[in-house]
């Protein structure tokens, strides 16, 4: 089943000449990706995911009123110019579809293909339910010990 999803990603990426294409859940965890992963992709994705997918959608709506005119609610596309290419994000709950383009002339095509991709497969099958639990840190340990442990090796020398 996952093989079929992977093939779809591969086809779309090749059609676009994109360097990477991926699908993440709303927490920003990549569920499936295809292509070469530029170093900042996962960080960007995780950061966007941490903002929350619905927040991301709202930001897109608030910042790109003209853009979203023809898009359906929950089907907004965001473009970011980040080295080494252009990142195109389709925010459609509960997923984030992301593609990195190196060829700017394919932006229009990329928007179309991302939407097609989102409709082409029951992506929900990739999703595992995120669990919420109580934080296990608020007990026992002394403050200084926690602090020492937490920030160990964090700072550049």
């Amino acid at each position, binding site marked *: 089943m996952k093989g079929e999803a992977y093939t779809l990603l591969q086809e779309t990426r090749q059609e676009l000449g994109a360097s990477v294409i991926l699908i993440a859940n709303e927490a920003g965890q990549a569920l499936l990706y295809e292509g070469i992963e530029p170093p*900042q992709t996962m960080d960007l994705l995780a950061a966007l995911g941490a*903002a929350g997918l619905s927040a991301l959608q709202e930001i897109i709506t608030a910042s790109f009123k003209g853009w979203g005119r023809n898009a359906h609610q929950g089907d907004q596309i965001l473009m970011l110019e980040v080295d080494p290419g252009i990142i195109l994000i389709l925010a459609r709950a509960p997923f984030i579809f992301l593609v990195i383009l190196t060829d700017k002339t394919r932006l229009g095509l990329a928007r179309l293909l991302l939407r097609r991709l989102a409709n082409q497969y029951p992506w929900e099958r990739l999703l595992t339910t995120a669990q919420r639990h109580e934080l296990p840190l608020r007990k026992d340990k002394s403050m200084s010990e926690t602090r020492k442990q937490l920030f160990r090796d964090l700072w550049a020398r």
Partner: protein
Amino acid sequence: MRIAWDRRELLLKVVYYGPPRAGKTTNLEQLQQMIAPEHRSDLISLNTYGDRTLFFDLLQVSLSQVGGLTPRVSVYTVPGQPRYRRVREIVLRGADGVIYVADSAPERLGENVRLWHQMHQQLRRMHQEVPILIQVNKRDLPNALPTSSITRALDPHGRYPVVEAQAKHGIGVKESFMQILMMILTGETV
């Protein structure tokens, strides 16, 4: 705050809030330089294609494992300009802790107070009760207001911890960041 059990990660969100040009992005830039590269991402400013901006900066930081989990912190700034009130609220949503960056210049006191109240309104509206730390920045200004004048205007009852800073020189940046994380993770100040 979320836990990704499959990766044993604790996902946290810290937001730098405050008036325009108070030094929020400078804090992130300094943090980026101070943190060992293997523990952080690049600082990403979300500039869109063309002349539109998504209006926030973010930096990801991984801490050392504690309680069997690796905390991964997404650090955001909000845009300070009045017209971006809505974007500020969206970025603030889901925050686990806030560092309020106040400007020490006397002429910015009104803005400090206005944004401070706006932040509280937004948090109340979203039913979010989160640890807040006040960072009084630009202490090196020759005409800087006394810290006590600023904090009295913001927090007359002294409920929130205060850190003095000169973010552009890196002073107080690390302390603020560590303190807000300790407040989030342990519920206490240090």
